[in-house]
């Protein structure tokens, strides 16, 4: 039986989310996508999942109105059950210090969201191709 792998996207801006989701769908991504607008919602979702759940990756913005993607990253990576989930930071924030902090906290990759819509779609397309090649464990 083929195991479903959910992709979690945490993105506060609806317009950005739509471009990202459309980018994945147009590139042929046919797994389930769970969308959350803040890290707390994603943590609640993870808490409800069984041990058999397989998360392909969490793609998260770094900056939220009331919380931060870095805190989410630290919480997940310090949780015995969830720390194996790959987390990709996908943000407009280009600060090198944040690239270092996120890698120290255990992010898999740090990708800067291009402001140009076409370029953003191109990045999502290549990210989708890469994700189609990776293996992930159960949580």
């Amino acid at each position, binding site marked *: 039986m083929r195991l479903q792998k959910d992709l979690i996207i945490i993105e506060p801006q609806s317009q950005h989310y739509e471009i990202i989701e459309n980018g994945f769908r147009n590139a042929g991504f046919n797994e389930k996508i769970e969308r959350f607008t803040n890290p707390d919602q994603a943590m609640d979702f993870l808490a409800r999942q069984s041990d058999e759940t397989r998360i392909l990756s969490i793609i998260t913005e770094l900056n939220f109105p009331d919380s931060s993607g870095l805190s989410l990253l630290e919480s997940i990576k310090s949780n015995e059950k969830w720390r*194996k989930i790959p987390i990709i930071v996908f943000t407009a924030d280009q600060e090198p210090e944040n690239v270092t902090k996120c890698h120290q906290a255990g992010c898999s990759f740090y*990708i800067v969201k291009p402001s140009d819509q076409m370029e953003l779609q191109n990045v999502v397309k*290549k990210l989708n191709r890469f994700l189609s090649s990776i*293996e992930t*464990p159960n949580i």
Partner: protein
Amino acid sequence: MEKNSKILIAEDDRGHFLLIKRNLWLACVENEIINFRDGQEILDFLFTGPHEDSETSYIILLDIRMPKVDGREVLRRLKQNTELAKIPVIMLTTTDDETEIEKCYELGCNSYVVKPADYTKFMEVVENLGAFLCLDSLKIPEIQPEKV
């Protein structure tokens, strides 16, 4: 990623290394690529150098089954070192065993990619990887070798 970042490939099979290098190149990867033939070689390089610059950035493609020190042990030692732990490590291996995948993620690998036995699929996987690594948007942290 930036053109001055180096790609370190720990791969004992010379044929596999050349195929990986060629297909990364076909995917427009222009970064310097350095090959290590076993786990000890890459550990020696990362822990003692020589490193050309006081600040540098690497990404590692790491095979698991290698002579002297296997890839899993290399991963464990890198992720235990505060400075070296920042280097993204992508496991690139023929092993698709679930337990191995789980152990590598527990040890902190950034990604786990299985090399398909089929030649065409193998090339496709490496090209997908290369296209991803070529993204200007992909940011790799700098490390300071003297802090290792």
